[in-house]
């Protein structure tokens, strides 16, 4: 077990910075309430560094202090890559070996989300972070439906293309839009395919928690900083495990 605490300026000091607004006029009660909140969050001692009114009914507060919680790095569940990161040529070779045909990927931003830059970064030849996108891979066929695609449309197209994987981007998170849309996606694919036969569902976006895949009913979530290579490698690994092939999933 490795227990750590935040580091301000000495090991173990546990120092953190916190800011929030309380729906209270700025007075001593609001300041006391700010400290109470900080304490409930585990900050002890908590220093109210700043408090000022935001209009007549709200108070903005900045609190500094030491948090008493410990973090156990060994109990951190990370969605770590448990498969090799492959170069494009390796991805192509593995797909050929495993499928003997091109892998079909259908991508889209679903719902009313129009943020295509993220999914384009993964799919378009141009790619991102110096890596080419999936379109560049000879053995991957990419069908990019773009933005604002209704889930039903996506299901239809995935069936028509006999997609191996469906890649969906969700950037808007207000009121949990991304979670709601992802659940709807999973439900629609479950409903439309025989059990266990639906394509791989891969979801991405900057504000996802990668650990939530199972909870949301998809196979994999990719968050901030994903590169096309991450996704291609995962897809190969996924087919390999689905087929019980050990070589690629080692």
């Amino acid at each position, binding site marked *: 077990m490795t227990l750590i605490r935040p580091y301000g300026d000495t090991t173990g000091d546990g120092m953190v910075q916190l*800011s*929030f*607004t309380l729906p209270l006029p700025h007075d001593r009660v609001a300041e006391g309430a700010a400290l109470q909140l900080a304490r409930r969050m585990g900050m002890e001692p908590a220093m109210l560094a700043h408090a000022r009114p*935001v*209009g007549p*009914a*709200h108070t*903005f507060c900045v609190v500094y202090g030491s948090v008493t919680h410990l973090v156990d790095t060994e109990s951190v569940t990370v969605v770590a890559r448990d498969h090799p990161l492959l170069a494009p040529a390796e991805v192509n070779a593995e797909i050929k070996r495993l499928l003997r045909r091109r892998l079909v990927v259908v991508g889209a931003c679903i*719902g*009313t*989300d*129009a943020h295509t*830059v993220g999914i384009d970064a993964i799919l378009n030849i141009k790619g991102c972070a110096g890596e080419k996108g999936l379109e560049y891979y000879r053995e991957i066929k990419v069908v990019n439906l*773009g*933005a*604002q695609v209704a889930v039903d449309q996506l299901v239809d197209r995935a069936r028509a293309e006999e997609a191996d994987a469906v890649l969906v981007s969700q950037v*808007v*998170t*207000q*009121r949990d*839009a991304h979670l709601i849309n992802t659940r709807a996606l999973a439900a629609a694919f479950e409903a439309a395919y025989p059990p266990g036969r639906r394509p791989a569902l891969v979801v991405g976006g*900057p*504000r996802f928690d990668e650990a939530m895949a199972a909870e949301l009913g998809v196979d994999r979530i990719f968050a*901030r900083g994903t590169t096309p290579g991450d996704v291609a490698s995962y897809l190969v690994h996924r087919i390999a495990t689905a087929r019980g092939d050990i070589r690629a999933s080692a």
Partner: protein
Amino acid sequence: MITLDQELARRARELAAHVGRPVVQLARSHTTTSVERALLRLAGLSGADADGVPWANHLVGQVVDQVGLEHGVALPVWDALCRHEAGDLHELAAKSAIGSVRFRLPDADAVAPVRRAAREAVTRGIARIDARRRERERMVAGIGDAPRKPWIYLIVATGDIHEDIPQAQAAARAGADVIAVIRSTGQSLLDYVPEGATREGFAGTYATQENFRLMRAALDETSRELGRYVRLTNYASGLCMPEIAVLAGLERLDMMLNDSMYGILFRDINPLRTFVDQRFSRQVHARAGIIINTGEDNYLTTSDAVAEAHTVTTSQLLNEYFAKEAGLADWQLGLGHAFEIDPAIPDSFRLELAHALLARTLFPDAPLKWMPPTRHMTGDVFHGYLLDGFFNLAGVLTGQSILLVGMMTEAVVTPWLSDRDLALRNVRYVLDATGSLGEDFRPVPGGFIASRAHRVLEEAVHLLERIDGNAAGLLGAIGDGTFGQMRRPPSGGRGGDGVAPRSELHYNPAEELLEPSRPAAHGHEEER
């Protein structure tokens, strides 16, 4: 503060007009379902059925089904009213919704009175808009105006009009001169305008007539409290753009996002649909005394702000041409541009100054809308706050007119109450501390800044030449991904089925009434 090559600027405008004119021609020779619905709204049709389907949609839907879109709805609708199929537009719409009205084109001899009736109804609507415009002028004169330029423009985006209102009022009290209510992500794809006050939006609040009214009333109250008229903005974009434009006029909105290409590029709306809807919307805005804000800043979220700087300039020139053509005056041209250069690039701030000065110098009388960094904002909110400060500084140094206030949480969430407050403190510090620094800011003639500005203008001229040389013109260029690297072919996108070429008989009294008297516009002799 910099001197532009006047000949180059003249050439740029000439080319923009050349490239824009065929598009205006297209707009003049087509109509759309939404233009027709807007016409009905102007004529006084409002409200929706119990399922929320607006009467305007019912009525236009029925006319299109029975008579087609190409003639416009004015003749069939007022023909039916003249035939006393219903006592007024509402009743007609309600009846048509249950299929109990038969529409037709009036007989040749009945056309004149039908046209007259339609024209009268619309004239009354335009008079309401005129009254709203005068009301604004009175209020600005009576209550007082924003104390200085740039106007401070703040976004509210809770998704719930009843949360938006106190937040907007708080923002105004804290110094905002303009409040923009952002719309729910999906609204521009809806082919109807929702009805009533709404509390359910994602990342924005629905634009409805009632929401407009509630917010305007609240800000009127706050304007009086503060002794300065607080402006209200919304978005004339998406499939209902012209209707929204009309509602904005009726509810005395003061500024509208209204761009010739935004919907095509970023919402994948059919280009023809957009250009037709656009022209009508612009005409309404011109009449309503509404300032439009264009959206070329958005290109820099999908393409590089240095490499593609000239696409912004090109688009500004086109937006200027389209706006003038539709009757908007210089003071209504809130052309957009943005501080979106990768801050890791050496001299990024000076490049920003060069771009900002180019716009300022090329459009000296336009109330330029200066957009904050978004693309290169990250979850490092401290750094974001700093970048916004330098954006504010660039705005001050280059004399921008409308300062859209940047939020440190740009890359994280839609703005919180405290983000807005912090952002305003940022603006205030920069304005107060450096307000008159312009006195000491003297870009060296021919130096880094001036030559960068010249080069961008040159590139814009080259691009316009290329578009002008393209057989498919502007539509072709859009199809090629010229703007924001978004490829939008002329036949693609949503809403294309809502467009029709006008027939010989087509009649739209609003358009006739709104057609500008065509004053000689700022330096284009082609404009007549």
